[in-house]
C-alpha cells in the first residue's frame, strides 16, 4: 500500500445505482482522507442521500466498489458497515421518540456491548461494570453536546434542533471511524446552524473523527469542509477545495441555472 492510499479511509470507485429506469447515481468515484471533513453537495435530487445510503450499506449499487480502511468491502450492508466503524445521522431523524435522551444515545453503544442478554438482564458483575463504562462514555458525549438539562427527557418532546443533537450524539456513541451526516443543518434557524457547525468542527477536532456530510446549503458547507464533491443529476460535476468548487462554472450553473 502506498502512503497516499494509507491516508485514505474510504475510496468510492465507479459506483452506479439505479431504481428501475431511474439513474440515481452514475459512475461516481471519490475518496475520503483520514481526519478530513468531506462534503457532498448538490441541488435537490442530485443523488446525495443515495450516495450516503450506498456508503452506509442501505442501498446496494449495481456497479462499483468501496474500499474502506484499505480493505475492499465484499458485501455492503448496514450492520457490516456499522461494525467496521461507519456511523450515520438521518435527515428526518430516526430516534426512539418515547425514550429519554440518555437511552437513545446509549443505544449507540449496543454494538460495543460484550456481555450477553442474561447477564445484562440481571445486572451481573461483568454486565454492571460494562454498563458503567458505557454510561461514562455517553456522559462525555452529553457533556460535549451540552444537553445535560435534557438527559431524562423523552426525545419526542424536545425541539427539533435538540433532537438533531441527540441524533449526532447517538452516532458519536459508536466511536465511529467515519461519520456520515445527512443534512445536519436542515430545518434549523441561523443560531442552531451555527451551533451545529461548531459541534461538527469540534467532533472532528476532539475525537479525530472523519466526517462526510451532505448539505444543500452551500454557504454552510464551504466554511467547514476541507474538500467538496458536487453531484448533479446523479453525476459528479466537480471535486476539490471549497474555493475551487465555488469557482467551477458547472457548479454555478447547476445551482443558479445556465445563463441564456
Amino acid at each position, binding site marked *: 500500500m502506498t502512503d497516499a492510499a494509507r491516508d485514505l479511509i474510504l475510496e468510492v470507485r465507479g459506483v452506479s445505482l439505479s431504481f428501475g429506469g431511474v439513474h440515481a447515481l452514475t459512475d461516481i468515484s471519490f475518496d475520503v482522507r483520514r481526519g478530513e471533513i468531506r462534503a457532498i453537495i448538490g441541488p435537490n435530487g442530485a443523488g446525495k442521500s443515495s450516495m450516503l445510503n450506498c456508503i452506509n450499506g442501505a442501498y446496494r449499487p449495481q456497479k462499483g466498489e468501496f474500499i474502506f480502511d484499505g480493505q475492499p468491502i465484499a458485501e455492503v450492508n448496514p450492520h457490516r458497515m456499522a461494525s467496521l466503524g461507519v456511523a450515520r445521522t438521518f435527515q428526518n431523524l430516526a430516534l426512539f421518540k418515547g425514550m429519554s435522551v440518555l437511552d437513545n444515545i446509549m443505544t449507540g453503544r449496543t454494538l460495543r456491548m460484550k456481555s450477553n442478554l442474561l447477564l445484562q438482564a440481571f445486572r451481573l458483575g461483568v454486565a454492571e461494570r460494562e454498563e458503567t463504562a458505557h*454510561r461514562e462514555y455517553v456522559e462525555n458525549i452529553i457533556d*460535549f453536546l451540552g444537553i*445535560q*438539562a435534557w438527559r431524562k427527557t423523552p426525545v419526542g418532546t424536545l425541539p427539533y434542533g435538540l433532537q438533531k443533537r441527540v441524533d449526532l450524539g447517538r452516532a458519536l456513541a459508536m466511536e465511529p471511524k467515519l461519520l456520515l451526516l445527512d443534512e445536519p443543518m436542515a430545518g434549523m434557524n441561523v443560531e442552531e446552524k451555527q451551533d451545529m457547525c461548531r459541534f461538527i468542527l469540534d467532533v472532528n*477536532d476532539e475525537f479525530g473523527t472523519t466526517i462526510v456530510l451532505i448539505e444543500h446549503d452551500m454557504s454552510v458547507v464551504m466554511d467547514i469542509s476541507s474538500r467538496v464533491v458536487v453531484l448533479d443529476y446523479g453525476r459528479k460535476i466537480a471535486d476539490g477545495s471549497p474555493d475551487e468548487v465555488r469557482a467551477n462554472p458547472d457548479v454555478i450553473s447547476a445551482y443558479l441555472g445556465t445563463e441564456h
Partner: protein
Amino acid sequence: MAHPTETTFPRVLMQHAAQRPARPAYREKYLGIWQTDTWRAAADKVRSIAAGLAHLGFKRGMSLAVIGDNRPFLYQAMLAAQALGGVAVPLYQDAVAAEMVYVLKDADVRFAIVEDQEQVDKLLELSEQVPDLHHIFYIDPRGLRNYDHGHLKPIDALMAMGAAHQAAHPGFIDAEIAQGSEEDVCVILYTSGTTGRPKGVCQTYRSMLGAGRGACQVDGLNDQDDMMAYLPMAWVGDFLFSMAQCMASGFTVNCPESRETVSADMKEIGPTYYFAPPRVYEGLLTSVTIRMEDAGRLKRSMFGFFMSVARRCGADLLDGRPVSTTDRLLYALGNLLVYGPLRNTLGMTRIRVAYTAGEAIGPDLFRFYRSIGINLKQLYGQTESCAYACIQPDGQVKYDSVGVPSPGMEIRIGDNSEVLVRGVSLLKEYYRNPAATAEVIDADGFFHTGDAGVIDSDGHLRIIDRAKDVSKMADGKVFAPKYIENKLKFFSFIKEAVVFGAGRESIGAFINIDFEAVGNWAERRNIAYSGYIDLAGNPAVGDLIRECVEKMNEELSGEQMLGHAQIARFLILHKELDPDDDELTRTRKVRRGFVEGKYRPLIDALYGGLGEQFIETDVRFEDGRTGKVSATLRIHDARTFAVQGGRS
C-alpha cells in the same frame, strides 16, 4: 462544631481542613454525578494552584482574574491567589471581550484562570489590548487542542507545576499564608455601573469575613448547610455567599452542571440555604402556575383551596403568630397534599432560609413562598458594603422593607432621603480612584448608597428608588420612577417597564411583555403569533397590558404620597431590553439615560399625542454580530383615577 476564628480566607480554609477534613466543601455535578471536594481536598488543590502560580512569578499584591460559570476550581483559584497575598478579580462570564478590557487593564491582570474555550477566545482576542496578560489557564480542555499553548495551559499543568514547586520548597505556601493579614484586600469587585466606567471595589478580609460572620449569627448557618452557587461569580452576592459565608460557616457550596440544569440540580441537592433575585422566584412561580393550569380539575381545585388556606395562615405559622386550630389542621393537611410536594418540585424541601435582594419583590410573590412554608426573607446592601447592610431577622419579615441594620452596621437617612451606611462591611476604597472614594464616603465614615429610602415605625428600612432618579414633575410633585416600574413588574405579564415623567405634565411608560406568560395567555385564547415582535404588537395583548396598567393606576390612587403618579399613556416595546444592547446592566437594571436617548422618537410620540410610531434599532447578538429590528408601535391611553383623600 465551632466556627473558624482565623482572619483571612486561606487561613480559614486551612482551619476547616484541620477541623472537618472529611466534610464536603464543594460539590460539582460532572458527567451526571456529583463530585465532592472535601475540605482537605480543597485545601490541597488550593496549595497546588498557589504553588503553580508562585512558580510562574505570581507575587503578593498581584491580581488573578477568574472568568466562568460557578466551578469549584474557580473558587479554589481565588483562594490560591489570596494564599500568596494576591487579589481575586472575578469577571462577568457573559461579558463580551470589549467589556473585559477595562477591568483587565485597570486591575493590572497578568494571570487568568478561566472555565473554557469561550472565555479563552475572548482573552486571546484581547491579547494586543492587554499585553500584560501573560498566563491563561483553563479548566475545560474541549476545543482547545489546536491552540498555541505558549501562554495558554490547562489547569492540570498549573497544578503539576505546583506539585513540583511544593516538593522543592516545602513550607513555602504555609509561610505565605501566614503572612496574610485581615487588612489585606482579598477581592476587587467591579460595579456594573449604571453610569460611567466600572469602579473596582476593594474589599478586605475583615469586611468580607465580618459580613459572612454576621449572616451566620442572624441565621445560624453551620457546616451542615448546603447552598447552590449559580449566580455570576463577579457579583458581590456570590462572593458573599459562596466565599465569605462558606468560609465563616463551613457549609457546602454546590455548583450546578450547567446553567440550564440549575432547577433539576437543586432538586437533587436540596439546599438548606438559598439566594435568588426576585425574577428567579417569579420565574419559578410562573412555571408552577402554568403547570397548574394544565392540570386536571381535581388537582386544580385542590390547589386552589389549599393555597387559599395557605394565604390565610401560612405566613403567620412561619412567624409563630397565633392561628386557629381549624386552620392549623387544614394547613397540616395542605402541607401533606400540596405544599410539601410543591416545595419538593421547586427543590426547596430542605430550605431553612431563603433570601432575595437586588430589586423590590411583589407582595403576592413574597406571600406565596412564605405561605407554603419557605422562610423567604430580604436583605439589602451594595458591592461597597459586601451586600450586607440590612437583613430581615426571623419573625420580622415584611415584603416592602429590606429589614433592620445587620449586626455591626448602622443606617442613617441623609439629604434627598438618601440611605447612608456605616460599619464592618464597608469597602476599603475604589481601586486607584481616591476621588471616587472620597465622593461616596463622608467625614463621619458613612457610605452614600445613592438609594432613596425611609425608615418605618418598626425601624425597618424601605427603599423607594435611586436618590438621583427621584425628581419632580412639572407641577412640582414627587416622581419616583422605580416605585411605579416595580408596581408594573409585579404583574406576571410585564417583564420590564421604564416610566417617564420628570419635568412633564403626565407619566408615560415603555413596557416589555413577559414572553412566556403572555405567550401562554395567547395560546389559551387561540391567538396566533410568530415571535416576540408579533406577540408584542398584537392588539389583544395591548388590551391585556392596558388592564394591568389601569389596575395599577387604581391601586396607586389610594396612596396619598404618590397617588398622582398614574400612567396616562404607554406603549409595548417590540424588543426585550437587553444587557447586550447596553439597555440593561449585567445585573438587569435599566440604564435609564441610555434608553431615553435610544428611543427618543418613541418618547416624543408618547407625549406628542401620536397614535403610533415607527422605530428601528440596532441589536447585538450573543456572538457579537449586530443587526437591526424595526416595528411600528401603537401607543395606548390608560384610564387614570382620582386620588383618594388627596386635595387635587
